[in-house]
């Protein structure tokens, strides 16, 4: 990011919830759903006051120029890419002229079925929260929003995570993870969100809903043509594809988990082998030293093993934490979704029984 990231500013007024302007919500849903299935992100502007984070404006980042040839990873790390830092500075300067808060408070990103736990997210948040500890990320799940209600969540990295990151210098050793009491369940902390309309927006919505606005369509049709006609998408019964994809992703994550576990097991075997070698060396030195003592030769210190051997470096536990968190996310999604689905199923059964 374009801000000094060296000093951690004092957590003066931590925020506990986020208030999002309705215009921001619409802008964000438009950008993420138009770009779908590509992962996109943008910057959020606003203020933090009275322990509430107010998100009042947002703008999208341009798609990375090389997109299409590179993986989506490039777009996911967009908030920190050089081109975007410049873009962001230009944009903020211009927005300031029309009296928009020129204060970045985080960024938004789209996600596909809640699969957003990755290194890029963590890196982005570490950088943002170093600049402004109250920064958040808004995750908009496009797939779920087209299913039923808007799925928008606000997160930021937890204090435990930041402490672990600092203590282990970004290496996430097992020791640091346990010492800081960090588990996969609390990498991110969620902030409650509320959506706020301005008075004018309320007036507009009232106007759109008023009978004066309703178009005079086909007089024989009684389907409501109001612009804000209620939406019954959540009664849709096409439930299988969603569940299927979710399970597929869940299994993929489990595979990732095993692969990661394999790396760690390899490290442990390596460590054990090294340790037994050291033990052997110490034994040998000890007996040699006994001989040397008898021959009045200088002895070799037993602590000298450090000169001859080196422990393998422990792989970062961050991947493990992230994959675990991802699996947990998928499981929770399935649970939430199945509760909706089973109620729908029972409703249909009852409904059709009455007919028969």
């Amino acid at each position: 990011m374009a801000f000094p990231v060296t000093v951690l500013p004092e957590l003066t007024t931590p925020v506990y919830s986020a208030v999002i302007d309705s215009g921001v919500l619409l802008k964000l849903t438009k950008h993420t759903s138009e770009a779908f299935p590509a992962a996109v992100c943008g910057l959020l502007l606003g203020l933090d006051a009275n322990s509430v984070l107010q998100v009042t404006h947002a703008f999208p980042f341009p798609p990375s120029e090389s997109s299409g040839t590179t993986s989506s990873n490039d777009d996911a790390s967009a908030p920190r890419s050089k081109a975007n830092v410049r873009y962001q500075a230009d944009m903020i300067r211009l927005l300031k002229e029309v009296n928009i808060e020129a204060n970045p408070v985080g960024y938004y990103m789209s996600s596909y079925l809640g699969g957003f736990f990755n290194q890029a997210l963590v890196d982005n948040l570490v950088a943002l929260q170093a600049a402004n500890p109250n920064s958040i990320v808004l995750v908009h799940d496009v797939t779920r929003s087209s299913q039923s209600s808007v799925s928008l969540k606000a997160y930021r990295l937890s204090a435990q995570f930041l402490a672990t990151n600092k203590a282990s210098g970004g290496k996430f050793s097992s020791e640091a993870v346990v010492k800081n009491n960090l588990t996969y369940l609390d990498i991110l902390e969620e902030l409650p969100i509320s959506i706020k309309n301005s008075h004018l927006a309320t007036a507009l919505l009232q106007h759109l809903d008023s009978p004066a606005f309703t178009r005079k369509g086909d007089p024989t049709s009684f389907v409501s043509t109001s612009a804000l006609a209620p939406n019954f998408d959540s009664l849709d019964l096409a439930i299988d594809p969603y569940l299927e994809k979710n399970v597929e992703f869940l299994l993929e994550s489990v595979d990732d988990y095993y692969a990661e576990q394999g790396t760690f097991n390899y490290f442990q075997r390596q460590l054990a082998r090294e340790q037994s070698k050291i033990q052997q060396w110490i034994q040998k030195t000890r007996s040699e030293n006994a001989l040397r003592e008898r021959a009045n030769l200088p002895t070799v210190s037993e602590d000298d093993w450090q000169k001859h051997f080196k422990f393998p470096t422990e792989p970062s536990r961050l991947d493990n934490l992230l994959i675990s968190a991802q699996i947990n996310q998928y499981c929770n999604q399935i649970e939430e979704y199945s509760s909706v689905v089973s109620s729908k199923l029972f409703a249909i059964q009852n409904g059709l029984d009455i007919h028969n």
Partner: protein
Amino acid sequence: MSNYGSFLHLSKPASMMTAHASSTPTPLNIIIHPQSLFSILDHTLRRNEGQERVIGTLLGQRSEDGTEIEIRSAFAVPHIESAAQVEIDMEYHKTMYNLYHKANPKEILVGWYATSLELNAFSALIQNFYSSVSDGTYPYPAVHLTMQADPSSDISIKTYISTNVGVLPDKISESCLFVPVPNELRYSESERSGLELVASAKNNESRDTSIISDIASLEKSIEEVIAMLDRVSAYVSSVQDGTTPGNVAIGKFLVANLSQAPKIDADELEKLFNSHLQDILLVVYLSNTIKTQMELFNGLKRTAVIS
């Protein structure tokens, strides 16, 4: 929209077309996405003290034949207006447009907005800039959207395109004829859920709402359906009682909808239902097992490191 039928839309006579650009058809319909309206309102709220109206640029897409224009987003442009002159920061407009265009390559300049319904000489001046050859929408006409955003009166939205009118050549830059064009509000499926969420706060005094879970939104939908059914059945019984005169069209419509209920064999349904439910339960069981395993593993890891 409300102004359907309130005016008659005539396409421009052929002679005017040739004067303008022979091959460009005039837009017959303008589609407005709600997001742009919210941007305009936001801009109104942020206007400088004493400023009566604010203006800005409209971005969007044009259909291939040019008869339909979609307004998809908008951004603010600073301007100073006094009785004698108007000053618009064109440099700002250009830089901002370039930045916007980078992020949304599909959206191009289509016109401009102002937050008062008044059309005056300045409007013509600005309109001519936006439809100019160098930086404007030429050869297409620029769309001018006016939105009444005064809290004391109803919000109303009007859209215009312009044509040159035969006046003295030295007056041409500050005169033009605004032709009203019908407009309608439209949004995509995924924007709809966003708009619906925003709209759910419209009768709320605190003007805020929170994101509801899937199950809660299902409940809400079902409640709405039940309310609608109640309303229909109340209407039907009142017709049967003779208190309300029956309407043949409504009756036909109801019958047509009722006949859409599928007739399924009870056993068949039972089978379908059970197999489906079992699938779902299996998936839930699987996910729960994985979750438990993860928690178990996490606990073991912890004790292993501590010991």
